[in-house]
């Protein structure tokens, strides 16, 4: 039990926090394609006897439909609960026998699996054999599915009583309208209830295909061994049957909307924002650097200064862009005692409006760059972090030298670019505002 001075903001995916990149001068990324078309990214790292491997597909929650939301999540969740005739119990025991850790990962865009194992031969091969089986021959056993549906539904029902998730889901739904980014990642009680085994099988065959697979490997193996691993993991994957259906565009908000949701909590949960930018947006770096100044840079940010440091109104206040394949959210969030919700909201809005109207000061921009550039080596100081970047570069088709260019791209950002980018992407007069458990006086 620990209490920390600042809160980490866990988004849909922890990786999304990692808006920036790394790569000390030349993170030596090796890249190739497997025999059946999976893209492979490898960094050899011999410092520790361990191996990290992830495999990602275009199978995230944006591939859900409104009628069957929660399908992408349940498919990913069920992968290691029975495969190739092995029961969930057998899989779990065999992994535990070699001390390996294997888990499903999912966010709005990507879904897949991530493995950590010792690099010694016995441990490594047993873990990789299981990973391959799970990715290539998931059984989705019917009895297990019934049970897991019930567990997901129970968790959703619980979430629907808690102010944080209530607010987050309402916010997502309001800013995205009919786009699947609007859908709650784990689905809704009624949509999960109607999912059938055949739905999972179909979703798997359509989305977990070798052509969209991104295999990332970091650790204590040679290039030849990595190539063997990539072949083993990709060999039995289904092939794409044509491309995936195109997704609708994300529509910009046309007008402001305020959503008030009742809740008995002692604090109001307040969320503000709109659809932001996609991964390949030309304004990515100006917005990234600018958001550090607005609400991303912890205690250095304007929102923290105005809401927490000056007035003691909140423990946590933040803003972020979460760039996705299509425009991901721009979000500001805070929690405050309910009788000061209006005051905190006004101060937050005033801070945002002023930032958008005037942009940052030259000194703020200098400090932001100093932090983002100076902290660059911290982004690459573990195998696990490097693995995350390989997966990011692979899935979003970023250039192989993305990390090498990161520092230069940050350094190039100008005051005018930040101001202009914010004015084009963030209109404080056309935002969605969600307040859960608002000020009773209002």
């Amino acid at each position: 039990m620990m209490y920390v001075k600042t809160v980490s903001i866990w988004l849909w995916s922890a990786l999304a926090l990692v808006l920036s990149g790394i790569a000390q001068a030349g993170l030596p990324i090796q890249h190739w394609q497997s025999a059946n078309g999976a893209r492979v990214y490898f960094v050899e790292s011999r410092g520790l006897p361990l191996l990290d491997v992830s495999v990602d597909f275009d199978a995230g929650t944006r591939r859900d439909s409104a009628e069957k939301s929660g399908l992408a999540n349940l498919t990913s969740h069920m992968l290691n609960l029975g495969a190739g005739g092995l029961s969930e119990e057998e899989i779990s025991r065999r992994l535990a026998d070699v001390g390996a850790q294997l888990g499903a990962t999912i966010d709005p865009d990507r879904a897949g699996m991530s493995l950590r194992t010792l690099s010694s031969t016995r441990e490594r091969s047993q873990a990789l054999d299981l990973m391959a089986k799970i990715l290539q021959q998931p059984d989705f056993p019917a009895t297990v599915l019934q049970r897991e549906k019930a567990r997901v539904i129970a968790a959703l029902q619980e979430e629907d009583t808690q102010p944080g998730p209530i607010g987050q889901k309402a916010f997502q739904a309001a800013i995205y309208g009919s786009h699947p980014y609007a859908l709650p990642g784990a689905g809704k009680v009624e949509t999960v209830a109607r999912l059938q085994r055949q739905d999972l099988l179909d979703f798997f065959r359509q989305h977990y295909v070798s052509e969209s697979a991104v295999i990332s490997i970091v650790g204590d193996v040679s290039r030849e061994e990595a190539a063997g691993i990539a072949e083993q993991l990709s060999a039995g994957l289904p092939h794409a049957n044509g491309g995936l259906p195109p997704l609708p565009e994300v529509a910009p908000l046309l007008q402001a909307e305020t959503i008030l949701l009742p809740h008995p909590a002692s604090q109001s949960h307040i969320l503000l924002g709109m659809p932001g930018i996609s991964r390949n947006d030309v304004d990515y770096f100006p917005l990234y650097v600018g958001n550090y100044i607005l609400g991303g840079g912890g205690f250095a940010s304007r929102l923290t200064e105005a809401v927490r440091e000056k007035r003691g109104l909140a423990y946590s206040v933040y803003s972020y862009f979460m760039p996705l394949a299509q425009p991901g959210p721009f979000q500001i969030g805070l929690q405050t005692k309910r009788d000061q919700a209006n005051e905190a909201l006004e101060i937050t809005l005033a801070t945002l409006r002023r930032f958008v109207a005037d942009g940052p000061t030259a000194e703020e921009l200098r400090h932001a760059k100093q932090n983002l550039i100076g902290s660059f080596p911290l982004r690459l100081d573990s195998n696990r972090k490097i693995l995350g970047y390989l997966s990011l570069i692979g899935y979003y088709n970023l250039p192989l030298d993305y990390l090498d260019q990161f520092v230069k791209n940050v350094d190039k950002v100008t005051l005018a670019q930040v101001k202009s980018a914010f004015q084009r992407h963030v209109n404080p007069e056309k935002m969605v505002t969600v307040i859960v458990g608002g000020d009773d006086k209002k």
Partner: protein
Amino acid sequence: MLRKMLLCLALLGMAGAAAANPYEYRLANGLKVVVKEDPRAPVVVSQIWYRVGSMDEVNGTTGVAHVLEHMMFKGTRKVPAGQFSKIIAEAGGRENAFTNRDYTTYFEQLQVGQLPLAFRLEADRMANLALTEREFSKEIKVVMEERRMRTDDNPQALVDEQLNAVAFEAHPYHHPVIGWMNDLENMRVEDARAWYQHWYAPNNATLVVVGDVKHDAVFRLAQQYFGALKPRVLPLRKEQKEPLQRGIKRVAVKAPAKQPYLMMAYRTPVLRDVAGDWEPYALKILAGVLDGYSAARLNQSLVRESRLANDVGAGYDEISRGPGLFIIEGTPSEGKSVVDLEQGIRNEIARLQRDGVSEEELQRVKAQVVAAQVYQRDSMFYQGMLIGNLEISGLSWRDEKMLLEKLKDVTADQVKEVANKYLHNDGLTVATLDPQPLDGKHPAQTSAGERHDVR
């Protein structure tokens, strides 16, 4: 004198770098410095651990350890309020702090060349904190918001808070780290000042550095920045022992939620004699047998097979300054009550006590212990946490190897023996969440067993 000592250390270091790593040195003022050299990336983490946490608080000012932690960012004579964080940020660093029952820790993560900056700022605020009424009056509001967010509006956190308050009646683990709200409302800047003056001194701290550094250079740097700080006479620490528990204790918490929640906490010992003790190691392995992997006993039996629970878990910390608890927790599945779940858990415990564990299970749990030992070395921060936690708890970083060996030595008989000795009613506290509707009117859940959870 000092220079000579450093020279010796440096030579030793050259002789057996890998074997000797980490390295330890104590300044004349009592500050202990532990350095672990890890050249995998050109970065460094500096953690300063104060051996003071919420267990050192007294009634009426609970939460003051954590409040002081917040105030440590609120300025000294040389570094005005808010500047600490900004200076570290502009140097490309990250900083934060955390308060726990046993300790308060402050850290910086930086490019390796920036380590002197971290030392300069930490040394400054160890001795020169301003602690003004103005800053305190704002920050105490932030802490109250933190309590609302973490505890008051979080049903399971409320259950955990009550569990500790009931399981520990005399020992200060009774009160929450963040403090009771009423104590926060009554807290004055003088309380924070007294806390700072009593406990913040080099002889009550351990400085842990992990990164691409040379230990002798770090020792010199520590001497340069912390060497002039004066030690203090620390307040007498009176060990508070929790009296013998004389029977099962139960507590229920009502809060807005859908799912009930159950926590069962058994009083246990913790590690005091690394070489001589064996029970804490056996309890640690026991936790792995119950919840070390997804097919471990509790999940396999209660979630997967009998469908009594949606989630279930077990945990035991063998390393702490205060007394231990072996905790099992879970949420019942739809239509099942906390009473049903408690019975299911009791059945699993009875099976363990009767039949013990298989050699296969034992080896499986140990395989994970061994692998975890490698995995944790991927994070410099975590390596620092291990060192600091051992040091604060009255053990040593030198014990890490023996801890691993002792865990590997645990036998099936020992696991069975501690299960029988400690998992019994007389040392048990049960806390439950009784979910309430959001609108305060009708019950959120009406399954039959729900009414029986308060006995």
